[in-house]
């Protein structure tokens, strides 16, 4: 699960100054709130994009390359029977990644703000 770490590390150019201010404790709450909100939105967009790519990657194969998706790998096992459940499982794992990130990083940030 590479996503949580990336979302937390990569901070867009325009908020980098604010982050320094937060670390040194100089930012006002509204500014810190904006940084936190941006961080959440960015992480949420990355995960949404991942879901869209996984799902439409699968649906793209279903729509445009049925023979490939129908490749029989072993008796009782074809590529689509592997990939279909994997799409379902990856949806849940992406949700899990978000919830873990939100519970650890985001909530503690909100708690600090609320104080």
């Amino acid at each position, binding site marked *: 699960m590479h996503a949580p770490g990336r979302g937390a590390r990569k901070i867009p150019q325009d908020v980098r100054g604010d982050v320094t201010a937060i670390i040194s404790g100089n930012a006002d709450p*509204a500014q810190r*709130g*904006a940084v*936190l*909100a941006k961080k*959440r*939105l960015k992480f*949420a*967009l990355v*995960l*949404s994009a991942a*879901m*869209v790519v*996984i*799902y*439409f990657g*699968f*649906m*793209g194969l*279903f*729509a*445009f390359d*049925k023979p490939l*998706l*129908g490749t*029989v790998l*072993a*008796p*009782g*096992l*074809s590529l*689509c*029977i592997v990939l*279909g*459940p994997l*799409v*379902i*499982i990856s*949806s*849940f794992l*992406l*949700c*899990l990644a*978000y*919830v873990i990130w*939100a*519970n650890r990083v985001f*909530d503690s940030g*909100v708690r600090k*703000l*609320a104080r």
Partner: protein
Amino acid sequence: MGSNTLSIGFFFAFMALTLAITYWAARRTRTTEHFFAAGGEVTPWQNGWALAGDFLSAGALLGIAGIVTSNGFDGMIYSIGWLVGWPIILFLIVEPLRNVGRFTFADVVAYRLRQRPVRLAGAVGTIAVILFYLIAQMVATGSLIKLLFGLPYIWSVVVVGGVMLIYVLFGGMLATTWVQVVKAALLMAGGVVLALLVLTHFDMSPLKLFAAASEKYGARVLQPGSKVVSGRWDAISLGIGLMFGTAAMPHVLMRAYTVKDSKAARLSILYATGLIGLFHLMVFIIGFGAMVLVGPEAVAKAGGGGNMAAPLLALTVGGNAFFGFICAVSFATMLAVVAGLTLSGVATLCHDVWTNVVRNGSASEAEQLRIARVATVAISILAIVLGIAFEGQNVAFMAGLAFSIACAANFPSLVLAITWRRLTTSAAVASILVGTISSLVLIYLSPTIQVDILGKPLAQVEHEWWFVSLRNPAIISLPLSFCVAIVLSLITTEANADATFDEMQERMLLGPLQASVPPRPRTKSAA
């Protein structure tokens, strides 16, 4: 049939339990906060189960199992599409929704904009979604109950409508939530047992099951076909409609308000995603089990368009008692889904249309509750009447239409309201109306209505200039709705919407902290 008596027995046990819950809930439902949001006292686990109960219709068990039995893998296209919308709800929608809104999704869209036009447009989109979905559910329910219990169609529809009315009218969201939880637990239990019983015939190995299926009916059952979803772009369009439609279904979004805060809302979506995903994986096993152990011919002969696959499989692997149980669970499933749908329709009519449009936000609690109850009776009667009126009609497309409208009408305005400062009132209203109308028009001009319903020959209509070959409109209507919203926002300005964006962002983060309702002390932490 002896199994008939058994299933009716199971069904009465379910009714007795849920009516007892309704009686208990009715005594606690005193305010609109309770009626629409169960007082925000539902725990994440309960809400996760209730979301699964709300969302898993009879189509999820009976319908998909039937498609898998006759077509193999293709049934899974629906299972997957119904699941991938949930992460989108979690990432983009549920936390802002919980923190900014109160009862409906229009609360969030209208927050920075002019209340009346946005709420009216939102109500049009929501009511369209709910009505089409309700008709599809009621008609399916009537014919399935006729098939499972031998009850006449009209009586089936009246019983379902009447019981749903009792749940919602007296017990509001609290009773509806518990009905969903009980139903979801029964459905999951039935699914697990059925899937395990199937696997005992195949050394507990799904692979041996699939191998047996392909030995019997050819490798095509393990491969994607074009009978269930035909057309390349149609498949993509179906995917768009299912994914973003799920993410904007009003009865799903409404559940964000039944928990105490945004963290609880987040957890409940995670649990719901897990439960629904697990259920769909089991249905896949059940469908293949029915294919091998019952046979597609026997399922087709039982009638109901393949819907009898799961019950017949239950009869084969578990005997009469289990058949009765699965039939009763299916009945309970339909009841719970229509109750959830009705409640979200009532919330829109009462909270958006009456309180905020007609009364301009100043209706007393007692008046709102009265209107909510009137709306409940009205929607229930409408559901029964429409259910009877559409008897025997091919309404399967209406469920798809509901998802398409939710996708094109609700999703763009909701996401833009949350993330984009520039969104204006006229843009939001136009986006919702364009999404609704374009979905309706595109479906009308497609083979779904022209060929399947109106019975015109395809060769005749496909050369007409207005003909739309796509059966699923989302690939056109969703981008169209987004474009309308973006273009209109850029050419109009709304000072107030711009000024309140930061305030809304803050509230999305922190929630309604110093809200008018003082938080009640809670002894137990929900998480």
